[in-house]
C-alpha cells in the first residue's frame, strides 16, 4: 500500500539516455525502484545500466514487453507534452513529469486530455515521489528519507527535501512524499493528494508545503477543514518575498485576496492546521499532534 508508488511500481523512463535520465535512472535503481524499461526514439533494441534496462522506441512497445505501469519523463520542455500524451495513450496509468518550462497553454491541453483519459499526471516541474524503502520516482535524493507514517505533499522541489530531511533527522519517518510541481497548471492538486493520504491506512498525519501565488493552499485549507480527520502541519514559503508579479487588473480580479503567504497561513490555521515559521519546526508540530 502507501500512495502512488511502491514495490509494485514498474517504472518506465522516457528520455532514459539523456543526462538527467542516466543520472537519476541510476539513483532510482540504486534505491531499489523497479526500473523495467526506457524509451528513447531511435535507440530501441539497446540496453542501459549494464544491461539491466532495455530501451524501446515507443512507450506502447515498452508497456507491451515489460508491463510498465508508471512513467517518469526527463525529456526537454519542447518534447514533454508529446511524451505525456504518448504515455497516456499507451496504457500507462500514472505519469510523473519532471521537466521544467512547459508553456502553460500546452499544459492546459495536456491537463484536460489526461483527465478525459483517466490517467493521473504528477507535475510538470515536480521532483517526483518516494515511498521510503519501496520506490523512488523522480529526482528526490533517496538517502534523506526514513520509513514511517507521515505523508508529505509539496508544490516545491528543493524545499520538499529540506522538510523531509528535517523529519528524518528528528526520527519521523514518511509513508510517501510527493511533489506536485510549481507550475500554474499541474496534473494533480493538493486536494487530490490529501484525499489519497486521508484514505491511506499507512499514513497517520500529513505535512503540506506551500508557497505564495495561486489559491491552491486556500482551497486545500477548506478541504482539510471539511473532510480530513488526520492532523496536518504546514509551512508556506514566501513571507518575505516582494509582492509577486501582478498580472494587470485581471490577475487581481482572479486572485482576489488570496495568494500571499499570510492569506495562506491564516486559511490553514483557521482550518486547524499547525503552521510552522521554519521547516525545522515541523517535527515538533507533528509531535504536538500526537505523531510518535
Amino acid at each position: 500500500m502507501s500512495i502512488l508508488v511502491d514495490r509494485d511500481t514498474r517504472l518506465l523512463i522516457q528520455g532514459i539516455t539523456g543526462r538527467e535520465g542516466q543520472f537519476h535512472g541510476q539513483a532510482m535503481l540504486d534505491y531499489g525502484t523497479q526500473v523495467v524499461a526506457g524509451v528513447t526514439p531511435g535507440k530501441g533494441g539497446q540496453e542501459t545500466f549494464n544491461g539491466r534496462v532495455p530501451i524501446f522506441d515507443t512507450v506502447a512497445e515498452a508497456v507491451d514487453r515489460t508491463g510498465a505501469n508508471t512513467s517518469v519523463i526527463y525529456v526537454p520542455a519542447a518534447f514533454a507534452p508529446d511524451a505525456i500524451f504518448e504515455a497516456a495513450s499507451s496504457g500507462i496509468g500514472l505519469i510523473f513529469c519532471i521537466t521544467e518550462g512547459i508553456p502553460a497553454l500546452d499544459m492546459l491541453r495536456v491537463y484536460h486530455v489526461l483527465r478525459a483519459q483517466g490517467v493521473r499526471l504528477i507535475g510538470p516541474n515536480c521532483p517526483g515521489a518516494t515511498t521510503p524503502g519501496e520506490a523512488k520516482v523522480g529526482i528526490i535524493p533517496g538517502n534523506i528519507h526514513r520509513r514511517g507514517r507521515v505523508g508529505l505533499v509539496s508544490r516545491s522541489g528543493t524545499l520538499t527535501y529540506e522538510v523531509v530531511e528535517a523529519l528524518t533527522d528528528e526520527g519521523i519517518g514518511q509513508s510517501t512524499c510527493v511533489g506536485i510541481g510549481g507550475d500554474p497548471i499541474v496534473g494533480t492538486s493538493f486536494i487530490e493528494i490529501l484525499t489519497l493520504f486521508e484514505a491511506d491506512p499507512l499514513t497517520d498525519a500529513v505535512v503540506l508545503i506551500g508557497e505564495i501565488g495561486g489559491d491552491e493552499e486556500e482551497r486545500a485549507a477548506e478541504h482539510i477543514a471539511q473532510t480530513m480527520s488526520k492532523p496536518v502541519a504546514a509551512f508556506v514559503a514566501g513571507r518575505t518575498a516582494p509582492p509577486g508579479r501582478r498580472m494587470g487588473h485581471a490577475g487581481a480580479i482572479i486572485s482576489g485576496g488570496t495568494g500571499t503567504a499570510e492569506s495562506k497561513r491564516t486559511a490553514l490555521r483557521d482550518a486547524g492546521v499547525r503552521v510552522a515559521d521554519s521547516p525545522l519546526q515541523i517535527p515538533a508540530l507533528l509531535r504536538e499532534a500526537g505523531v510518535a
Partner: protein
Amino acid sequence: MKLQEFRSKEILARHGIPTLPGEIATTPAAARAAAERLGVPVVVKAQVLAGGRGKAGGVKLAADPAEAEARAAEILELRIAGAPVHTVLVTPSVVIAHEYYLAVILDRAARAVTVIASAEGGIDIEDVAQTDPAAVLRLPLNPLIGLQPHNVRAVSFFLAIPEAHRATFAATLTGLVEAFVQTDAELAEINPLALTSDGLVALDAKIVLDDSGLARHPDLEQLRDPAEEEPAEAAAREAGISYIKLDGTIGCMVNGAGLAMATMDLVKLAGGEPANFLDIGGGARHERVAAAFRIILADPNVRAVLINIFGGITRGDEVAQGIVEARAGLERQVPMVVRIVGTNADEAAFILESADLQTAYTLDEAAAMAVAAATAGEGR
C-alpha cells in the same frame, strides 16, 4: 514578459482589433513632430511596464504641438514605480462615451482560458471587482473548443454593447482570444475598450507573455526592452538565473524558488534582511554559480552571502567546485556561509573543506551564521 502599451496594441491590431494611430517618441521634439502629423489634440502617454501610470502623471493631454512637446518633456523626466520613462506614445485624443473592460487570462484555478469583462472599465476596475462582483463577468472557455459564437454573444449582452457596435465587439473579443493563444500569453487586456464617436477602440492594452512560451516565439523575444529591466535582472536572465533585488544585506544563492523563498524567510527570522531572491535553477553547474556570484556582489549593500543548495537534479559537488573557482576570481570578498546537502553532498563537503569555506548543516544554522557574519562585517 510584459509588453508595453504600444507593442501590445500592435499585436492586437494585427488580430483585427480597432486601435488609434499613434507614434513613438523618445524626445520632446519628436513628440511635437508626431502631434503635427497626427493632428491635435493628442494624448502623450509614458511607455512603462509598471501599473499606476495615469495616477503617477504619466498620461497628459495636449491641445497643440507645442504643448505636446512640453508634456513629453515632463513625462520623460518621470520615474514611475522606480523605472525611468524612456519612451512616450503620442496618439489622438478622442471623446469617450463609455469605457468597457475586456481581458483574457489563464485562470489556474479554473484551469481554463477565461474571459473577464465589465461595463465599468477604466482604472478602478479592481475596486469594482471587490465592491460589486456581479458587475464583472468571468467566463471560462471550454479547452477543447475555445471561444464559440455563443460565448461572444454572452459577453456582448452582459456588457450591453449597443447593437450598432456588436459586430466590432465580436471581432475584438475574437481577436483578443486569438492574440492570447497565438502569442502564448498569460494575459491580454484592453482597458478601456472605449466607445467613441468613431466606434469601439482599444485605448489602452497590456499583454503579458508566458516566459516558458518565448522559446517558440523568437519574434516576441526580440521585443524585450533592455532599458526597462534592472541590469542585474537582465544579466541573471541571460545566465538562466531568476533574480530579484531587495533592500537587505545578506545575498542569497539557492536552488529552487520555494527553497529560495524559505531561505529569505529564515534570514529574516534570524534577524537579518535578505538582499535578493536568487534561484540558480535546476542542474546548475559552475558557470552559472560564477554568474550568480557576480550578480549578488554587484549589489553594494551585500555584507555576507548565504549559499543554500539542496541537491536533487543539481549535484552538490558541481556547485561546490563552482563556488571555489568563482571565489578565486571575485573582485570583492565578503563572508560566505555555504550549506550543500542532498545529491553528492559528501563530495561537496570535501571540496568546501579543502577550500576552507565556512559550512553549515541546517538551514536555521546557516541563516544565523550569515546574519552574524553580515553584522560583524558592518562593524569593520
